[in-house]
């Protein structure tokens, strides 16, 4: 079993939803980034998604886009992030996933990326602008290095398209809760229940819910059979951290 799947199954065995915080690489600044990851790790994060900044983040809302822009102007880049993760390999209990747009990965080179990511202890990649049709080459390269390529599906993803992603899928599947970009919202769309049920029926890996999450009460509106195995939160956490508040405090509301 892929280690990301195991992390989420372990949380389920403890009768809790797995927690997957997303933090843009280098955020909120150079001195606070690693302490933030350590604090998330010590306070219940099962998997940590590290965002690789990109100049043109078409699937992101204003908070993640702004974080991305700030980190780019601070000189954050993929090579440096991989080196930093490698240096601290084994210090975090949580699974590590890199989330970013295709072009920086493409310019790094797929083979180099897979090699360096594996060496750094990265367990998975999420690439929002890499749909199934374009993913074959990278998927094969990553598979040799036991790195999962986590798919994103949404309300308009048919059973047929979900099945394409499900074949050979490892780690987890990321269900996008809104027909829009990343960013915290108060109410989950009513379609979420239906999409979570459909994803459960098609995927054998755990189901994570993200885009628009900021507090656990949002989940109470979902029926029992449509509860996600894991929740991802990005924008709400970035905003919280940017206000100078602690990662521990943010995670506390999910315990």
């Amino acid at each position, binding site marked *: 079993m892929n280690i990301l799947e195991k992390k989420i199954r372990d949380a389920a065995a403890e009768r809790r939803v797995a927690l997957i915080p997303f933090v843009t690489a280098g955020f909120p600044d150079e001195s606070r980034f690693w302490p933030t990851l350590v604090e998330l790790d010590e306070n219940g994060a099962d998997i940590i998604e590290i965002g690789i900044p990109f100049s043109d983040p078409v*699937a992101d809302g204003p908070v993640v886009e702004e974080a991305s822009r700030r980190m780019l102007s601070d000189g954050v880049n993929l090579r440096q992030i991989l080196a930093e993760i490698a240096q601290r390999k084994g210090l975090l209990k949580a699974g590590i996933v890199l989330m970013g747009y295709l*072009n*920086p990965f493409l310019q*790094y080179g797929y083979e180099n990326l897979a090699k360096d990511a594996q060496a750094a202890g990265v367990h998975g990649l999420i690439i929002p602008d890499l*749909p199934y049709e*374009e993913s074959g080459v990278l998927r094969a390269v990553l598979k040799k290095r036991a790195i999962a390529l986590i798919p*994103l*599906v949404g309300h308009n993803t048919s059973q047929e*398209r979900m099945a394409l992603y499900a074949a050979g899928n490892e780690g987890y599947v990321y269900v996008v809760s809104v*027909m829009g970009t990343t960013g915290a919202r108060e109410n989950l769309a009513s379609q979420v229940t239906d999409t979570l049920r459909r994803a459960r029926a098609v995927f054998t890996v755990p189901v994570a819910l993200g885009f628009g999450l900021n507090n656990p009460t949002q989940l109470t509106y979902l029926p029992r059979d449509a509860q996600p195995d894991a929740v991802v939160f990005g924008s709400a956490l970035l905003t919280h951290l940017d206000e100078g508040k602690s990662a521990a405090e943010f995670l506390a509301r999910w315990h």
Partner: protein
Amino acid sequence: MKNSYFGEFGGCFVPELLMPPLLEVEAAMNDILPTPSFQNDLNDLLRDYAGRPTPLTYCPALSSECGFHLWLKREDLLHTGAHKINNTLGQALLARRMGKTALLAETGAGQHGVGTAAVAARLGMQCVIFMGAEDVERQSANVTRMKILGAEVHPVENGTRTLKDAINAALRYWISHQRTTHYCFGTAAGPHPFPTLVRLFQSVIGKETRAQCLEKTGGLPDAVVACVGGGSNAIGIFHAFLEDASVRLFGVEAAGTGEPGCFNSAPLNLGVPGVLHGSHTMLLQNNDGQIEPSQSVSAGLDYPGVGPEHAWLHKSGRAHYGMVKDANALAAFRRLCRSEGILPALESSHALAFVLDHPNRFAPGNAVIVNLSGRGDKDMDIVTQALEEEGHEHS
């Protein structure tokens, strides 16, 4: 998806949430577009609303100065002032048959925005336009035209505040409005099927040009020249000539100011392959894969990427791509005004400059056709300012 690549270029690199609407457009392109009833409706509108066919105009004064025969394909005479309406009419008709009630578009110079707004009004559809805030400032006349035509215009303040960022914003908007809205993409770039769809609608330029040239000169042209931003006017005029090995094809990219290390809009000449806006193509980017800002005096060429079919024609060698600086485009603009009484868009002026500045590229007696993709009325503010600056320098 089928045939989404031109050699190694093209593809469909978008979030999964945009795959269903793109597959829907692809299906409409394959199933609706070729039908006689669609083609009849489109041809009626192209003739009676847009003003096709456009003339192929001989330039006697410039021909005698250059020593070869210079012809202009007059897309500037189309309704709304540029070739853009060939594509917006086609996509809007397609969108209506797909049951969509609204059109979404990005625009750089504003020509595609105006072309979309006019067609939306004509066909009774809603219209939403995203335009970089810098472009809103430098092409304000077109913003007014779009609004008067009933479009909702959203200035985009993100990133470089130009076309690239308008496309990002439009893609985001489309994710949440795909049920009712068709994204009327403005150039032969972006994710599949847009490079093919836009070329299908723009290739009317080349088909007409080829027939007109045969009729007027008794033969094919020796060269066809067009400016390349995203590349829709160029692919539109090139396509009918791809199999004619004797016809040389020249695309012209914008070199910006031409100062060493300046920003430019010439990814075919100065970029490397990468993925942006759904397509694997030539891009201006740094070593980390971050997209570099582009720059050009003409907003319509100011884009760090290019349509994937041009990337392929460049690599395969079937077409050649040159570069022209801002100042040379402005000089060509003035020369056409004074010599032939035609006021070209600054975009098209790049193609003209490529021909006028290096007449020895062509043999005496050659027939050279420049695609005059748009008219320059929208550029009066920029041209006036440039003339004033020049006047000061010379005084």
